[in-house]
């Protein structure tokens, strides 16, 4: 599905990713764990196509296509979704308007018919129920005045509506209390399927109790230092990142 080979990326001339290799097959959930500043968010932005990152070496193939040559909206249409660590506020734009525009933009790019208001409403009602979101949240402006938990639920809702093939969850657990975390994790787990892959980016093991990964990778100093099964997360929880030369005050 996605094949990252020797990926190097710089910001303002400073190299952040120093050769990432990662292959994710359909249905797999991979977790990337790492300390602050290890390049976790850079990796998610580079994959999603944000401006300001210079790819100096390497390649990313997504369903056989050159992902790095695509515009961000083309990546979205190809099935890539990024759940943001800090979801962005768009004042005056109703959440439903945003969702409908996004869904129809993607459908249009794929040559599928756009949904009309009724079809869309039916779909979105179905998805909100599962995430215990209210109609009121749908009417509010995108992420404006949302609590941390509401923002992350909103990201999950967008993912549920857009049905991506590959979802990157960037620090989805940050700013969530345990109840909110459970709701979001349930929403994410409901989307797991043999066709859909996920890349869960997190600093802490806590999230992985709820979204259980098939593979865990440790990212530090811009490189994957070690890979393993879900037990690697538990080991990190116990020993921290010291083993990888990272000195983090507890």
């Amino acid at each position, binding site marked *: 599905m996605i094949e990252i080979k020797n990926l190097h990326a710089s910001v303002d001339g400073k190299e952040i990713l120093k050769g990432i290799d990662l292959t994710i097959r359909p249905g797999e959930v991979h977790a990337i764990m790492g300390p602050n500043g290890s390049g976790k968010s850079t990796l998610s932005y580079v994959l*999603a*196509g*944000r401006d300001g990152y210079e790819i100096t070496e390497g390649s990313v193939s997504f369903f056989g296509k050159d992902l790095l040559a695509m515009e*961000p909206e083309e990546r979205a*249409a190809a099935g890539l979704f990024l759940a943001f660590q800090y979801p962005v506020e*768009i004042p005056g734009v109703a959440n439903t*308007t*945003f969702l409908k525009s996004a869904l129809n*933009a993607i459908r249009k790019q794929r040559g599928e018919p756009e949904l009309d208001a009724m079809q869309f409403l039916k779909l979105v009602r179905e998805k909100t129920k599962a995430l215990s979101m209210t109609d009121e949240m749908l009417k509010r*402006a995108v992420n404006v005045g949302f609590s941390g938990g509401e923002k992350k639920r909103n990201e999950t809702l967008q993912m549920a509506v857009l049905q991506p093939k590959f979802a990157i969850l960037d620090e989805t657990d940050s700013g969530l209390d345990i109840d909110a975390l459970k709701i979001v994790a349930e929403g994410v787990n409901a989307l797991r399927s043999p066709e859909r892959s996920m890349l869960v980016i997190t600093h802490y093991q806590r999230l992985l109790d709820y979204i259980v990964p098939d593979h865990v990778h440790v990212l530090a100093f811009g490189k994957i230092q070690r890979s393993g099964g879900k037990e690697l997360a538990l080991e990190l929880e116990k020993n921290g990142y010291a083993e990888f030369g990272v000195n983090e005050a507890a």
Partner: protein
Amino acid sequence: MAATTETVEQVRAVTEQKYKYGFTTDIEADVAPKGLNEDIVRFISAKKEEPEWLLEWRLKAFRVWQEMEEPRHWAKLSYPPIDYQDAHYYAAPKMKDRPKSLDEVDPELLKTYEKLGIPLREQEILAGVEGSEGRSPAIAVDAVFDSVSVATTFKAKLEEMGIIFCSISEAVHKCPELVQKYLGSVVPYTDNFYATLNCAVFTDGSFVYIPKGVRCPMELSTYFRINQANTGQFERTLIIADEGSYVSYLEGCTAPKRDENQLHAAVVELVALDDAQIKYSTVQNWYPGNEEGVGGIYNFVTKRGACRGRNSKISWTQVETGSAITWKYPSCILQGDNSVGEFYSVAITNNFQQADTGTKMIHIGKNTRSTIVSKGISAGRAQQTYRGLVKILPKAEGARNHTQCDSLLIGDQCGAHTVPYIENRNRTARVEHEATTAKISEDQLFYCRQRGLSEEDAVSLIVNGFCKEVLKELPMEFAVEAQKLVGISLEGSVG
């Protein structure tokens, strides 16, 4: 907005229809010779077969205008001198010059209409004239092509209720006492350079009278179009809402793409008597000039409403996306006690467009209230200024004003300026002014694009969100089209 989106073809259909039935003969006519002098003023007045008092009024205005100086010092606008002798001051549509088919119409203009989703409904209304009555929603349209009103729809139905909706030249003959009483009563012939010029040479425009206690059952709409080259358009609109009446009026404007600048200097006067309410909405989409700033309409407009009666209300809603230069300050004189003035504005300037726009709220009566919401969006190398006056006179006990003025910048070569004037002469009055300036952030754009929206759609979505408070004031049918226009105006502004 209905009016704005009429295609050239629709208007052509109407003019041809009129020609076919031979309602008037002067439609075959003419363009007055270039230049401006007393003879031209007399020519226009004679063409309209105007009464003596109106000709005298025009001539008085013309003499005052000759002594006036063009106001070039205070507005933040820069443009080469206008040669007022190098334009035609009267042009009526000539059938022979109409495009024979859509192939002859400027394809750029057609593209714009196409993007707006050419509203067939309005085509029916305009082309079908009387025949389309009974279909909903009903919108009565007066189309002004160059200098002449070419068609007014739904007249008969409105007349049953005592509503007069016709061209102002017609009103001069039909109800001269109303015209004589109110024309120039809000914007006097000595008012300002452009308004005074308009008094001398105005050619047509719409007239509305709503009788006591009548709630006008449909939107009234005027469609203005400058078509002839080298022609100034000077329309004059007069709306009178008698005691306890209500009317919602829409105005739309378009012009073809031309390399030279064309002058548009309109005057709109509104009068609201006791308990009357006028809602005036404008979607201004005159040709803005090309990406290099060549061509486009110079739009110098005086719009003013008088809340003469107690509890009267006047609301201005404007969406200004066109014109190379916009100089426009729709105002309210809040004379009657408890009267209310509102100004909701979206102004978009892209490329080399310049706009100096805002409002004046003059509080005279007790407990008068005014609300100003201005949203300015600047992109490309455009410069935009909000200029607003809130004036509270000594007797305006308990007057209230709230002003909110937001600017949004796209790119780093445009400018937004806010110039509020507040004059308060009453201790019990309360005046509030809030202003913000923001840029569309990279974060917002990337977020939208990650969800599948193109950069242009993302900008359109974000800007529409920014303007929402104003757009929701537009009549429903037109709000959707205005949203699209917002997107179109900003095309090419990013990336």
